[in-house]
């Protein structure tokens, strides 16, 4: 391995993606585009209460409505025991999952599913929902993470036993995590400057444009097929099998094209309901969420609250960092507080670090992963306080980062010692950029921030089937969320030595390819890419053996070069090179089909680092922030398809800008979501933004043959602090709470202006 390959024919080119034509012509089938004959429409009844005991549910009137074929409630799902079960690399608690897909004893958030109906039309299904009567006992609710931790807060789950700490009586704290490196007391004793600050971030939604959708069809013999938009067909299979009491092999899940996920489609909502309804009715059932349901009931990421203390010497060495991070998990445990702690100051070589994290349940939808889960939250505070520290010390903020940068051999507070990483390179590129020294006008400011994400590997399986005419079909099992078919095909073409256009990559269903952990963690091009490279090498090995048979020589006498079998040396004999097509054409006579295969649990993901520069202009009258210019620098290891690498960086940065400036969940006093639509939950639109400049740094990951690191997640980590730091630079006002929306910023500006006016 060891990044051995450096000369490429296909890798690094901007080839047209294999699924592109279908996606520009409207042919591509997304989640809700699938239909079957005789299909019923399913709809979900959702709790209007943030917290309520469900005394009883009467579905008889709904069942009596003509056209209604079946109604389900939690009674249709067996209860699950509370234990953390491995699902691929993820740990899940099926007791919570069965309650999240369908409320049992209690409805725990506005939008929590309490019943579902399948009917011959959507209109009838919707009418039937109105006929279901639920007897609720409304309870006090809590949606704020800090309030939920206070004594006397409404308790979501009386039986919740916190992990990692002792609790005296019922609590909403599900878990405490601790990370310690060195001795923080000693570190602060050495410090000449110490700052302490608190920050909060709002819950934000992944905001994928495609709502969740699923079609399930269960036949009389118990075999089920599911078509859905998901980041992981194997995840859907495992979870649905467990919740519906079926065997995994009985369920075949075919992933549709997926209209965005960003982590939000790594869990199940509709699939178990559609399966249960199909089993009950004997008909295929289609379920689609409305946009409102997506906001009310599918996973946002956590709101967070954190307190940090940082110490440094006057010459700019950070000697200690201490922090407490509190993340709300939504209605069930499982916020990304652990990665939030691990990532907070991972870009820096700080000898003394102590971080404590709390995972806290509140009456909001259960959080789901969102791009580098946890890291953007903790980094907002960390990169803000480091900016203040730089100012305090009279340092350029990038120079302070450079002075404390983690590098090869640095021991990270979360455990490992870094191998070769490219953080310093991202800072150096930012310093050297034309952007960093460009002039600024009045009311304008510039901010910088950095970020870290682990990236992951995980289980991947791939097959490379050589066809009779010498082309190749690559079968792998990760939904293509942003161009991964292109990157996999480029790597296969590279290994096989054939034209990219002769490689057809497809995303297999759960029954036609080996297990693949889901699309997430920035793993597909890295881990599944590695499985594809190894599968292609397996095919090449077979091709060489076949050539040896044809030439009647020993198989080690043949090597593969530029898509041809050639004699390894002149000693082997004098043979004309055999092309892949020549060998494939003769395969029936030389041993049958040629299929390369690889399956492994891939290790060695290379961490990703990024440094962003943001220019803003602040309107002092309204508090409105305009992003004037934005540059994102990132170490990607090796850019397999540079356009999609840039696209990931640009998209991540813009999601971060939305998180910084205006995205948030707004609840009324009854705990109901007030902005469950794109008009009021406003994600960035084209007219809000400038071009997003990218600087791609390539410090190869030495544990991948091409040097690949994941790229999709780290770009969302720096933007919030970069924007906050730019606003401070423009106005002198430090924003410690997200979003930095016009009313909030205006209030802060007014508060800062008041003393002046009083003078």
């Amino acid at each position, binding site marked *: 391995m060891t990044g051995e390959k450096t000369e490429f024919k296909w890798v690094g080119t901007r080839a047209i993606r294999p699924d592109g034509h279908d996606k520009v012509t409207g042919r591509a089938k997304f989640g809700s585009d699938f239909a079957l004959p005789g299909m019923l429409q399913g709809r979900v009844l959702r709790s209007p209460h943030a917290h309520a005991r469900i005394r009883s549910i009467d579905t008889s009137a709904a069942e009596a409505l003509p056209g209604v074929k079946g109604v389900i409630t939690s009674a249709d799902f067996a209860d699950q025991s509370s234990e953390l079960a491995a699902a691929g690399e993820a740990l899940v608690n099926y007791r919570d999952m069965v309650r999240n897909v369908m409320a049992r004893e209690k409805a725990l958030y506005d939008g929590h599913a309490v019943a579902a109906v399948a009917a011959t039309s959507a209109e009838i299904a919707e009418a039937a929902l109105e006929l279901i009567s639920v007897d609720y006992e409304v309870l006090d609710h809590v949606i704020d993470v800090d309030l939920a931790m206070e004594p006397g807060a409404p308790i979501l789950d009386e039986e919740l036993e916190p992990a990692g700490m002792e609790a005296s009586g019922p609590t909403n704290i599900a878990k405490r995590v601790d990370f310690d490196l060195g001795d923080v007391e000693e570190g602060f004793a050495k410090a000449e400057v110490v700052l302490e600050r608190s920050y909060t971030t709002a819950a934000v939604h992944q905001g994928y444009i495609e709502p969740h959708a699923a079609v399930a069809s269960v036949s009389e013999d118990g075999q089920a097929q599911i078509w859905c938009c998901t980041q992981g067909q194997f995840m859907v299979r495992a979870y649905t099998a467990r919740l519906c009491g079926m065997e995994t092999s009985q369920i075949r899940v075919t992933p549709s094209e997926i209209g965005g996920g960003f982590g939000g489609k790594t869990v199940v909502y509709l699939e178990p309901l559609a399966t249960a309804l199909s089993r009950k009715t004997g008909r295929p059932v289609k379920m689609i969420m409305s946009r409102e349901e997506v906001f009310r009931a599918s996973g946002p990421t956590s709101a967070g609250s954190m307190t940090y203390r940082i110490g440094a010497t006057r010459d700019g060495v950070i000697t200690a960092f201490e922090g407490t991070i509190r993340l709300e998990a939504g209605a069930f445990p499982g916020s990304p507080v652990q990665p939030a702690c691990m990532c907070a100051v991972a870009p820096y070589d700080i000898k003394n670090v102590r971080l404590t994290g709390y995972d806290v349940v509140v009456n909001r939808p259960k959080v789901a992963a969102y791009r580098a889960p946890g890291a953007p939250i903790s980094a907002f505070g960390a990169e803000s306080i480091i900016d203040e520290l730089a100012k305090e010390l009279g340092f350029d903020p990038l120079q302070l980062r450079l002075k404390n940068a983690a590098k090869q051999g640095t021991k990270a507070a979360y455990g490992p010692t870094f191998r070769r990483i490219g953080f310093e390179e991202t800072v150096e590129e930012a310093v050297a950029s034309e952007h960093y020294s460009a002039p600024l006008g009045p009311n304008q400011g510039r901010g910088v921030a950095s970020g870290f994400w682990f990236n992951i590997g995980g289980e991947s399986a791939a097959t490379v089937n050589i066809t009779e005419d010498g082309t190749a079909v690559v079968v792998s099992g990760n939904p293509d969320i942003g161009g991964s078919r292109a990157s996999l095909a480029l790597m296969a073409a590279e290994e096989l030595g054939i034209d990219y256009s002769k490689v057809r990559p497809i995303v297999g269903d759960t029954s036609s390819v080996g297990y693949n952990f889901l699309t997430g963690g920035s793993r597909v091009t890295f881990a599944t890419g590695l499985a594809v490279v190894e599968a292609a090498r397996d095919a090449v090995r077979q091709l060489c053996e076949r050539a040896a048979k044809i030439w009647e020589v020993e198989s080690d006498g043949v090597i593969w070069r530029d898509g041809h079998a050639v004699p390894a040396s002149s000693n082997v004999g004098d043979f004309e090179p055999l092309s892949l097509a020549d060998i494939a054409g003769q395969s029936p006579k030389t041993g049958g089909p040629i299929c390369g295969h690889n399956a492994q649990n891939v290790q060695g993901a290379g961490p990703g680092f990024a440094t962003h520069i943001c220019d803003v202009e602040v309107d002092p009258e309204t508090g409105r922030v305009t992003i004037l210019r934005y540059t994102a620098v990132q170490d990607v290891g090796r850019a397999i398809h540079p356009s999609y690498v840039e696209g990931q960086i640009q998209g991540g940065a813009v999601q971060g800008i939305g998180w910084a400036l205006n995205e948030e969940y707004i609840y009324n006093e009854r705990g109901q979501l007030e902005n469950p639509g794109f008009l009021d939950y406003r*994600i960035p639109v084209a007219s809000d933004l400038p071009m997003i400049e990218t600087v791609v740094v390539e410090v190869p990951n030495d544990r991948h043959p091409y040097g690949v690191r994941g790229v999709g997640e780290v770009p969302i980590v720096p933007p919030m602090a970069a924007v906050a730091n730019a606003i401070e630079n423009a106005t002198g006002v430090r924003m410690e709470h997200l979003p930095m929306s016009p009313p909030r910023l205006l209030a802060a500006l007014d508060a800062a202006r008041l003393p002046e006016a009083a003078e």
Partner: protein
Amino acid sequence: MAKHHVTTTINGEPVEFLCSTRQTLLDVLRDELNLTGSKEGCASGDCGACSVVLDGRLVCSCLVLGAEAEGKTVETIEGMAQGDSLHPLQQNFLEDAALQCGICTPGFLVAAKALLERNPDPTETEVRYWLAGNLCRCTGYDKIIRAVMRTADEVRGEAS
């Protein structure tokens, strides 16, 4: 409830369909006519994924009733490529990687085509404001805007 019988022209073809009063044009296209290229991202006019051209006007088909298509012409993403050749916008979206997941792409293409037919030489700001009703969560818009501007340049180049 009696259904409405609607006679219309979709992508140049005469089409008749039956729809209920509350069905939107988007519902009809997707559920009755199997034209699933137009997408539903919100059903409230906020995302533009359902963009079509109705009698020459760019509209969100989720805000138009199916019955309103009576006697009108509808152009959808399915009618954008001619025979086996892509529209220059489609080609440039592919070449410039102006799509990641692709769910927003039909809406952007239909909207961008309508822009270039009205204004063959738009500034970046004009493109950004025209497309402000089309949401994309994947790309940060950069490559979309570039692909539209490049297409405008090329088409003008050919015309002159």
